[in-house]
């Protein structure tokens, strides 16, 4: 058994709705994801998969239980430490790409590197290398509104990769793409997993997208139902 990159023990997450109503989104969840795995997280809307993804990505903290990702107990980290941890360990890919509209593709990819001590020339070189890796170096100077959806998502993947994160967290990465573009993006993620050993956790509604993963997890009502 490979070393676990993600380990959840008895994790619960509840939100308070209004003044008194408490909503349990996750309850007593246990999960281990080995390093280098490509996991597709599936389930109906409201099943808690995005909440789980946010907890693994360090965007949110559990109400109870332990979360260890890349060797760090995230439930124990404060806001600042969690930000630094995300910068060092996680690459995020969103459904709607979430690129900065006023920056070129290359500048968008450089964003995570602004938090490092790399000099400007090295940042540019690394951004260009990441764009080359995702096959879109020729669009480096283009702004997001000059790119197709598939191209924009590739830029977003390049941004997620550029700081060489331990884990890639993808929330519906193909949800806004046509089939062809979606397949290209999924092939890219698959290649990053197989060729570069990147651990990937992907939330998706799309069974075809899930087939690209090496493992599928299903959630319903805040619990894992099948592996």
């Amino acid at each position, binding site marked *: 058994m490979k070393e676990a990159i993600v380990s959840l023990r008895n994790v619960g997450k509840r939100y308070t709705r209004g003044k008194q109503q408490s909503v349990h989104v996750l309850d007593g969840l246990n999960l281990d994801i080995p390093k280098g795995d490509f996991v597709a997280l599936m389930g109906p809307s409201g099943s808690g998969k995005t909440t789980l993804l*946010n907890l693994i*990505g360090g*965007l*949110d903290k559990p109400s109870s239980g332990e979360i260890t990702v890349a060797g760090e107990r995230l439930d124990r980290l404060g*806001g*600042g430490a969690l*930000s*630094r*941890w*995300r*910068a*060092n360990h996680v690459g*995020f890919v*969103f459904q*709607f790409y*979430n690129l*900065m*509209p*006023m*920056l070129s593709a290359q*500048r968008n990819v450089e*964003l*995570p590197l*602004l*938090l490092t001590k790399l000099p*400007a020339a090295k*940042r540019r070189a690394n951004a260009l290398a990441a764009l080359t890796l995702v096959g879109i170096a020729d669009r480096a100077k283009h702004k997001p509104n000059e790119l197709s959806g598939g191209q924009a998502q590739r830029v977003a993947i390049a*941004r997620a990769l550029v700081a060489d994160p331990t884990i890639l967290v993808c929330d519906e990465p193909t949800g806004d793409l046509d089939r062809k573009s979606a397949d290209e993006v999924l092939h890219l993620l698959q290649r990053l997993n197989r060729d570069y050993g990147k651990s990937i956790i992907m939330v998706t509604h799309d069974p075809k997208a899930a087939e690209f993963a090496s493992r599928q997890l299903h959630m319903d009502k805040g619990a894992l139902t099948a592996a």
Partner: protein
Amino acid sequence: MKFFPLVWATLWRKKTRTIFTLLSIVVAFLLFGLLETVDYAFSHPGGGSNSGADRLITINKYSITLPLQLAQLGDIKSVPGVTAVTWLSWFGAYYQEPKNFVFAEPIDSDSYFKVYNDDYVIADQQMQAFRTTRTGVLVSAALLQKFGWKVGDKVPLHSTIWTQKDGSLDWTFDIVGVLNPKTPELASQQATIFLFHYEMFDEGRNFGKGTVAWFEERIADPAQSAALSNKIDALFANSANETKTQPAKDFALAFLKQLGDIGFILHAILGAVFFTLLFLTGNTMMQSVRERIPELAVLKTLGFGNPTILGLVVGESLLLCGIGALIGLGFSYAALPGLKKLLQGVDLSPDGVTPGFLIAVLFALIVSILPAARAVRLNIIDALASQH
């Protein structure tokens, strides 16, 4: 510096809005710069130079509008340390129509140029003509140019105060020479000066004979100005003509303050302008941040901590206000040569510019407080979810 491209790009995200906001800041700081130049003129009579440090002015203790007696001259002359004394009067004149103000002063030619021996260059021949011509006047070169006068012309001035024995307010003079101030500052201050003989004035006027508006003393040691002022005033204490003596610069300041506290008025105007601008720019910044909530959430997701997010928003505000202040103050500096032609003594000193930049920084910090706080407080999950 590595964040500069991000801040710069963010600033120009909505070009039209940024340009209009920038324009309002530019106008505010242009106004600031222009009013500072006026404030300078009122707070630095004499152009800020040190000339006149060795001169005192003696006026009536109770009001500058009340006269002193020429007979007091002898006592003032007797004060040790006073090297020369002259006397002058208000004439209150204009040429042809009231808008053509002329700073006409009746003077005693001998003593006047002992007190003001450093200020003017006058051709010997013209000086001689002035001394020997009862109706002669010395006129500044700027005034000659303004009214198209020349040496040899006979010019009438209308006094708003002094009637002649025949009841006329019109006095006729012969231009015999040109006053050439030695420095550009003096040329600016003395642009409308018109000197004529006190003797002719005193003989010709219908009332107030033997009176003067003020005395001016030249002293040997400027450091003794306060002590000498006290000595002169002590001479006339409890007399019918009590005096108030002060250094020439203090006199000029006090005179200007009679118009009102110009500095306060100017700063009150600026206060109102900046207060309005505060809401305008603050609202723009707030709107800008509100529109970028998802983008800020993405930056936070990527690992940008709260101090960095705070720095980005404040940096954007500093950049906007800094550029606005720089352009506004730059324009006011560029307008300075033109202003100097319109108003005497205006200038834009580093003392005037530095507060401008400090205000810009303070302003930027104030307008960015609320947007920055909102950016820092935003919840990543909620902000990202708001896109769906």
